[in-house]
């Protein structure tokens, strides 16, 4: 009998590609023979814009790379610039940065798990995830006035000190969140249908994962104990006690469980940071840049530079973003604008592994595996 191979295009506008990704699938019946992701539907030329903007003007653009967790993006770029210029950051500013970044990790994992479950057909989890995310966003709005695109972390500190009433609300959020995570676990973790869909699907061994350049929860789901916060501690992570969540099953379920564990770990970190936060209300480096001229609302108004010229040189600096290793390669020629900004985005490198992971599986498995890789198209296409 003669059979014909079916070519299916999933996307670019498809409900389960989390944005505008397209999969070109060569199918044999329901089995995927070959999967080719087609990218670039959200390619906005951020790297080119980086060469056209000054350092400070480029910070808002970093927000729009990985728009679910924008704070680590902000921080990664600022960290690169700070390393380049050798700026010291006040301790309180570092604490605030860590609070925002860990909060963002929780938000990111909520969205990631929620959209994974929605793709699998259970719409409830995403609603619950976004319900808690909304509370976190209100905290962000208190802090920096925006919900998703913060422009909060600046070279030498943060934009503003934390407002009054922030810490109690944060504590309330942490307490609430711990209960909610129990709910999620009860709803999903042991669900037989969920296990059936996730176990032994999208298996990638540790060697392959390293070879593909996967990082973050996807790598830790394959049993590699690797977290930049531990390996190359930046900011104040050296002083914080936390453990790296690792699972050895290498499948989609392991990656999902890593995310759940990481959320709990984030809450643990947040509690610590809030408890040990220094009192001195200095959130920017006064040696660097100029103070506001007139009518400053308070004495603790942060100082940050208006025109910023790091010395010539190049730096590659990376952090552990919620999705994996986020790096910025910044080349400076001593002017106000970077000469070249290269973004090493975790989603792009993690997505590399998809074609190898899904051959021989079915479309629903592709969706499950893809959901646990957790990509954001703004981060992939930049």
């Amino acid at each position: 009998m003669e059979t014909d191979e079916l070519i299916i295009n999933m996307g670019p506008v498809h409900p389960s590609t989390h944005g505008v990704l397209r999969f070109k699938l060569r199918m044999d019946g329901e089995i995927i023979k070959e999967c080719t992701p087609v990218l670039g539907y959200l390619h906005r030329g951020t790297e080119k814009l980086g060469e056209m903007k000054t350092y400070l003007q480029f910070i808002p653009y970093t927000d729009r790379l990985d728009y679910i967790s924008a704070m680590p993006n902000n921080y990664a770029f600022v960290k690169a610039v700070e390393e380049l210029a050798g700026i010291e950051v006040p301790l309180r500013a570092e604490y605030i940065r860590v609070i925002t970044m860990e909060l963002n990790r929780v938000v990111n994992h909520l969205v990631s798990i929620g959209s994974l479950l929605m793709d699998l057909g259970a719409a409830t989890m995403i609603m619950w995830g976004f319900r808690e995310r909304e509370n976190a966003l209100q905290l962000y709005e208190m802090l920096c006035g925006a919900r998703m695109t913060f422009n909060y972390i600046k070279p030498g500190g943060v934009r503003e000190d934390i407002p009054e009433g922030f810490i109690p609300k944060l504590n309330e959020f942490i307490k609430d969140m711990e209960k909610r995570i129990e709910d999620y676990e009860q709803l999903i973790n042991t669900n037989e249908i969920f296990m059936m869909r996730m176990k032994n699907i999208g298996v990638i061994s540790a060697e392959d994962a390293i070879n593909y350049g996967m990082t973050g929860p996807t790598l830790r789901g394959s049993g590699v104990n690797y977290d930049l916060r531990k390996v190359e501690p930046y900011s104040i992570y050296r002083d914080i006690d936390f453990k790296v969540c690792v699972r050895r099953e290498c499948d989609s379920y392991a990656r999902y469980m890593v995310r759940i564990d990481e959320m709990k770990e984030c809450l643990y970190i947040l509690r610590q940071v809030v408890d040990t936060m220094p009192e001195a209300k200095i959130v920017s480096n006064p040696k660097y840049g100029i103070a506001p001229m007139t009518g400053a609302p308070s004495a603790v108004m942060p100082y940050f530079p208006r025109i910023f010229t790091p010395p010539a040189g190049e730096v590659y600096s990376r952090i552990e973003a919620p999705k994996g290793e986020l790096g910025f390669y910044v080349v400076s020629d001593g002017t106000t604008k970077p000469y070249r900004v290269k973004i090493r985005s975790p989603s792009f490198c993690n997505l590399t592994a998809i074609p190898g992971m899904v051959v021989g599986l079915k479309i629903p498995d592709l969706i499950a595996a893809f959901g646990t890789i957790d990509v954001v198209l703004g981060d992939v296409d930049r």
Partner: protein
Amino acid sequence: MDPVTIDTTKIKSIKRKPVTALEKLEDTGLISTVLAAREREGLILLSTIDQVFNWARLSSLWPVTSGLACCAIEMMGVAMAHHDIARFGMEIFRASPRQADLMFVAGTVTKRMAPRVKQLYEMMPDPKWVIAVGSCASTGGPYHESYSVLKGVDLIIPVDVYIPGCPPRPEAWLYAIIQLREKIKNEGYGAKWGLNK
């Protein structure tokens, strides 16, 4: 006001098969009847039908799932528990454009995506509306200097309501939806086909 006379003989002499939706509707003679009635302000019944249809349309705007970029996350946020677009009967995000009435252009329309957005719009059945969300869709926004971004989605499809913001907060979306509802409420029957002008 003089009654509008419809010369049906002229229409029949053309003898062309109606192709587009507009021609089909004209073929039934409904539009011209309604328009004539509106002109004369005599037939209250027909304008009531207008109102009923407008009411139905504004009450059940089903959006097509077409998240493009950052704003898509806020679009999900609008649909979720805290803001709950379902109160307006809009939570049915149809994956297939054939069953949708409203398109949120939520995010940056890149050059590569532009023909697809246009195709998606063309696949939607009339009457249909478009809301351009955020700076990117309105004017190109942050990326309007970029080589690969379209400077505003209204260059390729007609837009009814623009929402500024980057991304706009969910209340701003709901405000825009209320604005759109106001707009639909005041539309004539043939409004989407440009006949009541």
